[in-house]
């Protein structure tokens, strides 16, 4: 077990691509941190930098307060699970599990005991004589985890370990990873592009975009207090609706929100009002979580009139695709997704009124920063 600190890490490739930009991050001992971002955001590169498979162009990496910039992967005592598992195809499951221990000159008795222990934890005992080609996706995944854990690494790195599995297996193994991590308390860095995995697994989640750190926080912090519109859109399923809008200061301690053709009066707390007032008369963006829409009046909820474009009934809930009336051509960035409990039928005239609590509204400036934070 170990703590990890990245200080101003940058990585440029020969082709001039900057994969990671001055990123700093601290991971506590025993913590499970998830790195999330769309593909090409630098999350896998960051993992490889920590593993020692790539060298940082700038910055320092510390494991347990020791600078490991020039250490080999083995000296760093990290273990990694690859996206395609990278099991040795010519070796049996047993040989795959034994390989890392043989390289660290572990005694035969100790190897046998340790491999047995890991096989028990991961339910691999039945598969020991098979080769990777004879295993299913889920079994391969477990062997890959086993090979990483067998050495008792101080840091456990997982690079999109579930992306090659089907949906039901993914949920199952996700729970298994969480269980094993809790049991072994190994410091873990988990890379994924799937925000559901990030939210369900991570003690803390790190959101990356174009090699830059967008926000670090607990899943709840990211969901409730996104620092910028990227995080707001990325976290949540579906993500936050963000549409161009404007603010007008009425002068009586209230603000009007211009949303499409509508002008909605907002009653806000003093603090929020003061943060928003400087933006009156400017173009801003308003964010609304799909879950914030209510089809029946709520206390102090503001009314938004919308046209319903389509509804998708999912059984326990309905997703409604909405746009604001008065706009002839609806650009993609002005449609909303509302997530409504139970069944919601498309009205005959397509017009529906929804109610949103003012505190459920988010406001972002032109640069995308959350104005209320």
């Amino acid at each position, binding site marked *: 077990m170990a703590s990890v600190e990245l200080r101003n890490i940058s990585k440029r490739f020969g082709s001039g691509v900057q994969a990671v930009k001055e990123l700093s991050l601290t991971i506590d001992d025993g913590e499970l941190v998830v790195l999330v971002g769309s593909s090409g955001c630098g999350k896998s590169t960051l993992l490889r930098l920590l593993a*020692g498979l790539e060298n940082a162009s700038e910055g320092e990496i510390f494991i347990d307060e020791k600078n490991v910039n020039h250490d080999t*992967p083995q000296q760093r005592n990290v273990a*990694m699970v*690859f996206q*395609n598992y990278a099991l*040795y195809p*010519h070796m049996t499951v047993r040989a795959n599990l034994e390989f890392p221990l043989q*390289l660290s000159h572990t005694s035969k008795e100790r190897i046998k005991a340790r491999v047995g222990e890991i096989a028990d934890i991961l339910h691999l005992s039945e598969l020991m004589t098979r080769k990777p080609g004879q295993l299913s996706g889920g079994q391969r995944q477990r062997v890959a985890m086993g090979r990483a854990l067998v*050495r008792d690494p101080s840091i456990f790195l997982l690079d999109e370990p579930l992306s090659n599995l089907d949906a039901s297996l993914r949920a199952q193994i996700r729970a298994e990873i969480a269980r094993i991590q809790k049991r072994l308390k190994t410091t873990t860095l988990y890379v994924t592009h799937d925000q559901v995995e990030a939210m369900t697994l991570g003690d803390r989640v790190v959101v990356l975009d174009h090699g830059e750190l967008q926000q670090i926080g607990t899943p709840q912090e990211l969901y409730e207090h996104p620092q910028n519109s990227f995080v707001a859109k990325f976290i949540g399923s579906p993500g936050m609706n963000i549409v161009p809008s404007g603010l007008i200061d009425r002068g009586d301690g209230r603000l009007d929100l211009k949303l499409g053709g509508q002008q909605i009066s907002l009653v806000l707390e003093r603090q929020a009002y003061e943060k928003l007032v400087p933006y009156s008369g400017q173009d801003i963006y308003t964010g609304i979580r799909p879950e914030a829409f209510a089809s029946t009046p709520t206390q102090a909820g503001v009314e938004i009139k919308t046209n319903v474009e389509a509804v998708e009934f999912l059984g326990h809930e309905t997703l409604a695709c909405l746009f604001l009336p008065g706009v002839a051509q609806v650009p993609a960035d002005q449609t909303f997704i509302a997530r409504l409990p139970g069944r919601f039928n498309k009205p005959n005239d397509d017009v529906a009124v929804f109610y949103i609590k003012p505190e459920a509204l988010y406001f972002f400036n032109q640069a995308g920063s959350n104005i209320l934070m």
Partner: protein
Amino acid sequence: MSGKQRIRMLSVYLLLAAFAFTFLIPVAMMLFGSFKPDDQVLVQAGRLGSLLPTEFRWFNYQDVFARVPFARYLFNSAFISLCIVAGGLLVNSLAAYAFARLQWPGRDWVLLVVVALMIIPLEAIAVPLFYEVTLLGWRDTYWVQIIPFIANAFSIYLFYTFFLSLPRELEEAARIDGAGPWRIFFRIVAPNAKPVFASVAILSFLTQWGALLWPLMVTHSEAVRPLPLGIATFYSLPPLQWGDIFAFGVMMVTPVLLIFVLFQRWFVQGVATTGVKG
């Protein structure tokens, strides 16, 4: 299948069979001729009807062993070819791995030179090479027939294209598990590259087994001469006996055929894989 299709299939097969027959006739003549008494071999060569011998007799084979040191030639050929194959597999695969995976200055330029070397035939450099080995005092030895042929640009290229196609993550996983470059090569890369090792082994074995020009230039004693040179001298050894020569030929190609049959599954797989990736 309609009647028309059947006729078309049949004619295609007949055509192919005719081709196969044409190519196999010389081999059949060699094989059957090796069992015939000498006075029948040439007399019957022009007539297909008398291709098969009336009786199978081994005297031509006994003749070969009586007239030339065939066993010595066979040993020499086998020893030289096997040394070249074994050394070549090691040296060329390691070189190819360095080109495919390791980072070092000038790598791409050196690779370009290696690829360019593939088009230079031995005949073009035989004389300078002859001077060189003479300077080294290597003439008329086994080593002069082995060492110049261990490193081979074409083998390197075959290995290189195959290694490029191996998933990089395998090697990275091994690095994380604590393996260094040598161990990664021998424990992870080589076992997963069996098809290309088989292809290179067979290709270089075939080339060396039939080598004539270089041994002719650098050897003069029976003790180190290989089979092709043996058969060449056998031709000019009076009295000229075709049955004996055929018997020599049969014994010369049999080991190669055996090796090919044994390893052909790997060989075809290797050529197919390297071909696609290259």
